[in-house]
């Protein structure tokens, strides 16, 4: 269905600052459609520590791309660069063709948070720690951005928030404060808060890592439903089952590089990359008893 993008095995150094044609190759998207996300030659350092290097990645519309890899491999940093919660140093990220975080001028100028608002309202993010606002009810958490960012009136926002909570199966918890909800419920409210904004793209940063094992399933189910509805998603996860069954593409990161990229089958079963095999081996050992 989807031809493998061979960015992963790309050994030639990319011209870090050179924008290349979006997509770069056969990627299965309908002709003339801009990919949702294109990452080209991305690099980032914390001091002398290079956390991302030469990252190339294309995410097409309605695709689910999972970023996997050992901790410290840079997958969360990559995700946070996509909505510019983290600034990158080299290369470029485009969302629907628009450069993220910098002006198109040369030399590029870093955009302010104010200038980034337009982009961010179309890119939802779900965090590992949920980050619900504890002083607002579940309903208020979902309605807040509709009022403050979309400019909806309170009644319409509340009605829409209620619909969204219904969609994640939490209509009954609308008036509960986050502290009264389980981790899984909190994360579902956080997802409702994002989808209420009708984002074009959703970023998930280890959405189930802070959850008790028995609560992981309900969150993954909501994410599966979203994927089935055609939401474009980039998911940093340690849930290999989710990656294998739901993702269209999987990117394996190691030491700030994409070491393997392709369909789940290509990465999990056909990759010759020893680090992938080693990572999966460790994963299986940890999860068997």
């Amino acid at each position: 269905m989807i031809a493998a993008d061979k960015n992963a095995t790309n050994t030639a150094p990319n011209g870090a600052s050179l924008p290349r044609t979006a997509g770069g190759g056969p990627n299965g998207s309908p002709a003339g459609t801009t990919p949702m996300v294109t990452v080209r030659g991305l690099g980032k350092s914390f001091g002398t520590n290079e956390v991302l290097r030469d990252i190339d990645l294309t995410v097409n519309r309605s695709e689910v791309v999972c970023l996997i890899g050992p901790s410290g491999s840079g997958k969360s940093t990559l995700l946070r660069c996509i909505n510019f919660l983290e600034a990158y140093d080299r290369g470029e990220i485009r969302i629907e063709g628009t450069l993220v975080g910098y002006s198109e001028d040369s030399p590029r100028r870093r955009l302010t948070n104010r200038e980034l608002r337009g982009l961010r309202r179309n890119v939802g993010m779900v965090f590992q720690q949920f980050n619900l606002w504890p002083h607002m009810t579940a309903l208020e958490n979902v309605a807040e951005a509709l009022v403050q960012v979309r400019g909806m009136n309170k009644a319409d926002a509340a009605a829409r928030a209620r619909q969204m909570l219904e969609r994640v199966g939490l209509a009954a918890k609308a008036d509960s404060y986050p502290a009264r909800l389980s981790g899984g419920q909190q994360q579902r409210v956080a997802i409702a808060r994002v989808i209420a904004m009708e984002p074009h793209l959703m970023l998930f940063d280890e959405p189930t890592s802070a959850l008790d094992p028995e609560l992981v399933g309900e969150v993954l189910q909501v994410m599966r439903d979203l994927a089935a509805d055609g939401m474009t998603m980039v998911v940093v996860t340690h849930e290999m089952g989710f990656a294998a069954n739901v993702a269209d593409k999987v990117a394996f990161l190691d030491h700030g590089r994409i070491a393997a990229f392709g369909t789940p089958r290509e990465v999990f079963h056909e990759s010759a990359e020893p680090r992938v095999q080693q990572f999966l081996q460790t994963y299986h050992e940890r999860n068997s008893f």
Partner: protein
Amino acid sequence: MKFSVIIDALPYLLQAAVTTVWVSLLGMLLGQVIGVLVCVARQSGSRAADMAGGVYVSFFRGVPLLIQLLLIYYMLPLVGIDVPPLVASVAALGLASGAYVSEIYRGSLNAVPHGQAEAALALGFPGTTIWSRILLPQAFRISVPALINELILLLKASSLISVVGVAELTRTSQTISASNYRPLEIYLAAGVIYLAINGVLALFGTAVERRLQRG
């Protein structure tokens, strides 16, 4: 012990207690305003403002309130500003309290997890809205117990303004016991009145906390 002297003195003591409450309330109010301003200065990102705020806090926290009060009371007339004792008292209480309050607010703001603002940022919130809707309400909630504590300390510290002649509770107790030679009864009564006022403050604090901790 002769409790009838307390009954006789009670109207005067209560009247003085009203002064204590007023001076303290005004001092608290001034302290809150100064506290917010100093806190904003220190969080503003400007090095100069941060330094100025830091110097302010270390001075007013480091010098005893009694000395500050006497400095304000005796120094300002030297430069031609004649301050009534009541104004000097409110100013001293407010300036000192402001230093503590600014630190309480600063600590509370830092105690709000970073992810709280980040979630709003990622949704496209304007910066001012992140402050007004997400950060400040939470910082305030965190600060309530420490603020109530500070208010209680301030109310007790207001006994110091007796030295500049304001007829508040402590000063009035001194005056009465100097004339009826019954210091034990009078000071005991004064102590109970202070305790009662602070009890009300503490109850108020608990009520506010409970209301804010619905979540």
